[in-house]
């Protein structure tokens, strides 16, 4: 493969992705509490969801398990990605909390929550069995 061919293919790759964007393809997942809980139960072996804190913008949720464990559900393109949280230390931020997955490449998610919801989340994390 010559350098010219490589450059041409690279330009084609960028053009196709650009066309997909210009056509308005994609979107965000329709995330609600039920779906966040179902997603965590389906993806994580032995996880029994008890409830969920849903970010107001619908792009992330923190699901708590009946055994005191937690799962982070976040939007990934038009789909969702889930991680069980081995350690949880939500960081209060303006308008909500930031939850780290513990994996650098998976990253963190910010949950936009009303103050009362945020306080309830922080209290639940604080009171979890260790």
């Amino acid at each position, binding site marked *: *493969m010559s350098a010219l061919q*490589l450059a041409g*293919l*690279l330009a*084609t*790759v*960028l053009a*196709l*992705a*650009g*066309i*997909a*964007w210009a*056509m*308005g*393809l*994609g*979107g965000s997942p329709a995330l609600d509490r039920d779906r966040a809980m179902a997603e965590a139960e389906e*993806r994580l*072996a032995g996880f029994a969801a008890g409830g969920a804190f849903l970010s107001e913008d619908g792009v992330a949720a923190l699901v708590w398990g009946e055994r005191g464990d937690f799962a982070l559900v*976040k939007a*990934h*393109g*038009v*789909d*969702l*990605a*889930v*991680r069980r949280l081995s350690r949880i230390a939500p960081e209060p931020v303006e308008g909500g909390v930031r939850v780290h*997955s513990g*994996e650098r*490449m*998976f*990253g963190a998610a910010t949950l936009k929550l009303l103050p009362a919801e945020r306080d309830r989340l922080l209290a639940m994390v604080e009171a979890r069995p260790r």
Partner: protein
Amino acid sequence: MSLPNPVALAIPAFILLVLAEMVVARLKDRRRYCPRDTLTSLSLGLGNLLAGTLAGSLLFALAVGAHQYRLIDIGWTWWAFLLCFVLDDLAYYVFHRSAHRVRWFWASHVIHHSSQHYNLSTALRQTWTGFLSLAFVFRLPLFLLGFEPAMVLFCAGLNLVYQFWIHTEAIGRLPPWFEAVMNTPSHHRVHHAVNPRYLDRNYAGVFIVWDRMFGTFEPERDDDRPRYGILRQLGSFNILWAAFHEWIGMARDLWAAPGWRNKLGYLVREPGWSHDGSRETTETIRARWRERTAASTRN
């Protein structure tokens, strides 16, 4: 005899068909494509071409070397092409099954499954580390049998080109006679799905008959819509992470595992295997799903 590279010749058609599928997605369901996912898939495809160019000469030299020890001279006849195509597809089935059942090969193949989308750009999301994982050993029997190296590589190229069009949700089911013999979008959607029923099924390249023969066939069902990707979704569009994450995970497991037997297990056992049984494999996931299904049927 000099033969063309079918994959290189097909690239313009690949591009046009991806564009056509995007138009269909725009009209029917915009969520079938995600621009960032498309960029990742196509970039991985470009990297695969580059890796193939770098390793190509060495692979051909290895093929010619193996051909020196051939059992018979098959030569260049029309029936040799046909037989070569069929046997190469069988070799592909064995390779592909191993790529899902042996973590060393999976580390390379997982790239192709790491998108949560199933469209023609996913078809181009191909490995960068095929040579490293020694995937070429699965074709060695063909050279040793006596098929010409150029013929085998030509047939392998045709096989890859065939597999492009089956990566789509735009085509439903095809006529029963076709679905019975050939790999189709429906059969391959099952292969890319992470639903417990569909895990590690339908390994075929061109002919689905191999799966029917060897007990790995599963039909697509309307009441169990395929969900795509890998069990532990990446949650990232990073190209390098998609290309190397399983190699990195395997290296970490290897380092941390107690004893040589366990270390070997992380290389050659099925993906998800762990020395302490703390992770899930296809078998444990399917067993749990069967138990749950049986319990809900009883209630």
